[in-house]
């Protein structure tokens, strides 16, 4: 999870990702952020993220993003 945290902190150093659970709902992440995070995850974890994974529920918190990565790793 450290690698993921590094990606997120790099993008929004002002956010406390350990506690924030409304990254999309509170409009902290915009569509540019979501795409940047998705492509960084693809690169860093070598997983496939599909169009149907690009939904707010998968990017709303650190935990949700991490769950998605694990799900994708299991699917691979």
């Amino acid at each position: 999870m450290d690698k993921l945290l590094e990606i997120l902190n790099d993008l929004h150093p002002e956010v406390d990702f350990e506690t924030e659970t409304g990254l999309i709902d509170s409009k902290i992440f915009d569509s540019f952020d979501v795409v940047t995070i998705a492509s960084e995850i693809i690169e860093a974890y070598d997983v496939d993220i599909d169009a149907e994974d690009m939904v707010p529920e998968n990017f709303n918190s650190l935990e949700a993003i991490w769950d998605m990565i694990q799900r994708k790793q299991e699917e691979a």
Partner: protein
Amino acid sequence: MLFASYEFLLFLAVVFIVYYALPGRYQWIFLLIAGYVFYFIANPFYLIFITTTSFTVYYAARKMEDIRREFKTLKLPEGITREEKKELKAKEKKQEKRWMLGALLFNLGILAVLKYTNFAISNINAISGAVGAGLSIEHLNIILPMGISFYTFQALSYLIDVYHAKYDAQRSFPRFALFVSFFPQLVQGPISRYSDLSKSLYEEHRPEYTTITRGLQRIMWGFFKKLVIADRILVAVNAIIHDPETYSGVYVFMGMLFYALELYADFTGGIDITIGVAQTMGITVKENFERPFFSKNIKEYWKRWHITMGTWFTDYIFYPLSVSKFMRNLNKFARKHFGDKIGKRVPVYFSSFVVWLTTGIWHGASWNFIVWGLGNFVVIMISEELSPLYDAFHSRFKVADRKWYKCFQIIRTVLIMSCLRMFDCYRDVPLTFKMFGTMFTNFGLKNLSASMIGELGLKPVDYCILLAGTVLLILVSMIQRNGSVREKIAGLGVLKRYCIWFGLFLIILLFGAYGIGYDESQFIYNQF
């Protein structure tokens, strides 16, 4: 049938009375008939296209769901390996994809042929003329069905969502046809999602005082924007853009701001009428605007202007493209050759470029819209690239929360967006650049005379009405920051409440742009 016409008001009154007179279970059927009648009155020929789109998308979505259900109930042989199961699933998804792509391409094909054939012919003729081939293809006499870009996109969002199993397919064709042809949004959107609109579209609705009055108030506010502001200022905008030789420099600046106001009042006014009409029947249509000109920057503006179109492009083009195999390879290539810092920007920037190109093309079959779309892309990219500079500025100077700085940001947004809209206004790319240039090379403030302004077709009283109307627009927007204005008015005493709404009604009646010099005008976004 124009929204701002007596025919529409009569149509609306009949629909409203019959809708509530009918037993609840027949209300949605009646809305479907009303939608088709509305379309029939506009042009009977249009019905072929909307029915075709409705049926093909409905059928493809149903088939996809059938394939999925069949796979779920399939008895897999014992001892089947994980890989074999994955292979079967992939095969099933492939079948679904065929239906999805078939319906998608078929409907995009209809849109492309009807909307872009003549644009393609013009370009072929122009290229042929430039190379001296002497080819001259005649333009086709194509009628573009009303709201085709809106209802096609609305239907396709449903198709893609069903493909991604976001919700179940609608099994009843008439119900789905209603989703595509719901008449208040046939003229200029918004582009509703099935998951949003279906919640209240098929339900039984009994007349409720609050819902009906709030809907009527919203309709009135829409007519105020359209008739008192947009249709009045339209006269001056037309005078300026149709005579670029006379009106340059300071008049271009004036026309640019006038057009921004006209477009805002016209489009948001139309959407107010749409949402209001739906509300009077108990149906909730998603908001399409969130005070866009109060945005800090262009990126934020696009999250608050024509929201349903913006989210459509984000969900169905920007996101899928940015995680596609093509993008993955491009990302790898860029990281390898240009390093991580530049490489990681590639998916965002490339996808964004495609989105803005298609946004421009969606708006109209001409180069001015394409350049307008790409202009937005360039401004957003510059703003992104400059963000480290902004961050450094804000860490040094604590001005972000100062009122004057916020005002500066709003003015900047208004000016940048108004400049870009000049492409939409002049509808000719070289002419737009030329007229834009005159604001810097020949501003000519001394040319701004009362007699010249008088020749724009508006009397001093019109300017006073426009000024007062604009102030009212800004005031209402400011109050909206703290919640619904209609709710606040509802909290006032009876006398004040009625004075406000009756006053607005009188203003529309007395100051609406009707009569000699003003024609009933179509909404600007209707042509998209």
